[in-house]
């Protein structure tokens, strides 16, 4: 991967680099400019993402300036990606550039705020991309509160030229975080199952892409049936289920090296894997006769531990973000329902009591909700409930919606939807408020998405 070769000068920003193993990007704050205006007493521009309904904030994103004329193409493309990210979040309403009055030619000059107020922009993003003599890109941006007339954020980054899309995602995250107080989710990837061919003989391949659908990369060739890929916390590894010779098994795949290995030496089919939050363990189902039980394997010591022991189907385990508990589905009570147990196994408590069946529970990275698939009255919906089972809400329901996965900030859920018949599934996102459903572009049919943590 290119990120590893990035240089690491000018590391002074505290928000992008703390505690990261891999130094992905060099970032630095741009000093706030001395403004001719006194800071207004008006409340600062700020979004509350916890509200059920929200008016998208009008924001202006004039094309970033090219540091040299040759840079203006990349600068424009970066602007478009930021604009698209902010629009898709549902929290921002980018204003049509045709309405802009001031043309930004120098991002080091204070914008003419009256020109931006006149078109009702509340936020303004200006930026500049400059190719350095060593070939790297320097990206700078400033976020302005138009009504208060002050700068809310200013950052610069250095990266290799082929990383220009990531720069756009990182700037998008910086804007999102500054205005909402929440971490963003744009500098992330999705691993999913790419599906081609007729339904009776579907060819399934593991694929990796940026969260906006760009940079699709295939990780397997389609010879073996592959299902349910999940990221490790470092995003360098994927665990998934694959058919091949013999029993279907849970595998690990290093996406950097392409190295692949079977997880454990279990006497039967293993499936439905997921990493622990510290990346040290993989939890999965083992088929034993007619029953499926949940096991964990420590990746360093290779020791395995049985976590459930029932004459039932126990599957789809998912850790709480602190690693202390596991939610999973079980039909031990008849129909599939969601249970929570300690990460060491033992007694489990049922938390789903609504109508229908509940499956594929996934714990939010924030810890506050568990997302799931609910099957009820011939429909498949995606919902959330608190880990104690309270506060259940169905976000989307229809013929077939399945397999939720969380954005790293716990505000957005991705899932797949199948319209039935000879067609195939597609990926969608929806906010946990139940608003802002968006289709995610993929080259073919797509299913089993898993959202990575933030890359930087």
């Amino acid at each position, binding site marked *: 991967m290119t990120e590893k070769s990035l240089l690491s000068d000018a590391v002074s920003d505290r928000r992008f680099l703390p505690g990261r193993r891999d130094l992905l990007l060099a970032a630095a704050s741009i000093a706030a400019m001395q403004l001719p205006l006194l800071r207004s007493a008006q409340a600062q521009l700020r979004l509350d993402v916890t509200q059920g309904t929200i008016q998208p904030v009008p924001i202006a994103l004039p094309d970033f300036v090219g540091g040299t004329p040759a840079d203006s193409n990349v600068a424009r493309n970066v602007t478009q990606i930021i604009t698209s990210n902010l629009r898709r979040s549902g929290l921002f309403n980018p204003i049509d550039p045709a309405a802009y009055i001031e043309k930004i030619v120098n991002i080091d000059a204070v914008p003419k705020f009256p020109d931006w107020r006149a078109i009702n922009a509340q936020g303004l993003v200006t930026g500049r991309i400059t190719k350095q003599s060593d070939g790297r890109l320097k990206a700078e941006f400033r976020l302005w509160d138009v009504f208060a007339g002050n700068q809310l954020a200013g950052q610069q980054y250095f990266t290799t030229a082929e990383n220009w899309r990531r720069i756009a995602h990182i700037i998008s995250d910086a804007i999102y975080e500054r205005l909402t107080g929440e971490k963003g989710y744009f500098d992330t990837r999705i691993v999913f199952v790419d599906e081609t061919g*007729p*339904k*009776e*003989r*579907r060819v*399934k391949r593991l694929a990796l892409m940026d969260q906006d659908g760009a940079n699709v990369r295939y990780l397997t060739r389609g010879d073996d*049936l592959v*299902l*349910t890929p999940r990221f490790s916390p470092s995003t360098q590894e994927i665990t998934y*289920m694959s058919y091949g010779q013999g*029993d*279907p098994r849970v595998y690990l795949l290093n996406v950097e090296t392409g190295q692949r290995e079977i997880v454990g030496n279990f006497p039967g*089919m293993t*499936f*439905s894997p997921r990493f622990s939050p510290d990346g040290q363990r993989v939890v999965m*189902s083992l*088929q034993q*006769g*007619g*029953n*499926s039980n949940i096991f964990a394997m420590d990746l360093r010591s290779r020791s395995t531990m049985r976590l459930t022991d029932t004459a039932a*189907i126990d*599957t*789809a385990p998912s850790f709480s973000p602190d690693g202390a508990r596991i939610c999973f*589905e079980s*039909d031990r009570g008849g*129909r*599939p329902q969601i249970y929570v147990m300690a990460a060491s196994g033992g007694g489990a408590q049922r938390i789903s009591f609504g109508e229908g069946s509940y*499956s*594929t529970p996934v714990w939010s990275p924030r810890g506050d909700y568990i997302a799931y*698939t609910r*099957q009820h009255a011939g429909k498949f919906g995606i919902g959330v409930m608190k880990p104690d089972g309270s506060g259940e809400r169905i976000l989307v329901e229809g*013929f*077939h919606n*399945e*397999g939720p996965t969380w954005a790293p900030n716990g505000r957005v859920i991705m899932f797949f939807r*199948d*319209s*039935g*018949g*000879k067609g195939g599934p597609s990926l969608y996102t929806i906010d946990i408020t139940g608003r802002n459903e968006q289709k995610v572009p993929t080259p073919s049919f797509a*299913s*089993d998405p898993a959202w990575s943590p933030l890359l930087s």
Partner: protein
Amino acid sequence: MIAVIRGLRGIQIAAVLAGALTLAACASNPTAQNGGAGMAGAATPGSAQDFVVNVGDRIFFETDSTQLTPQAVATLEKQAQWLQRYNRYTFTIEGHADERGTREYNIALGARRAQAAQDFLISRGIDRSRMRTISYGKERPVAVCDDISCWSQNRRAVTVLNASS
């Protein structure tokens, strides 16, 4: 099914293809393709196509169920008799689910269905060492449409004779 058809020759192709078409058309009666009386004479006794056409290689399940229906028991009885008689065959029991379930659960459900068929055959004296099971969950439907006529065809356990045996 496809693998079986591929290996057939001459007039026997017509017989088995007729069975396949019944499947593709989402027959309302799940037992319709279990042989089909008119085709009985076509296959060589003891051949793989004899098993598919005259015995019936698959059983069907109710929604979200792993219980053997009376028809399933009848088919498995015939399978057991045939497998006793032609004991050179090893075979794989494939368990499948319809698309009206989630991926992970359906993998386990398919495994349970294959296990139910295996348990029955073992109870009728077939040696466990001749068989293995595999679950495909909802990954390999034989009938594709968005209503129950197809789903009922896909909730199945298929006994596939190993070609090399």
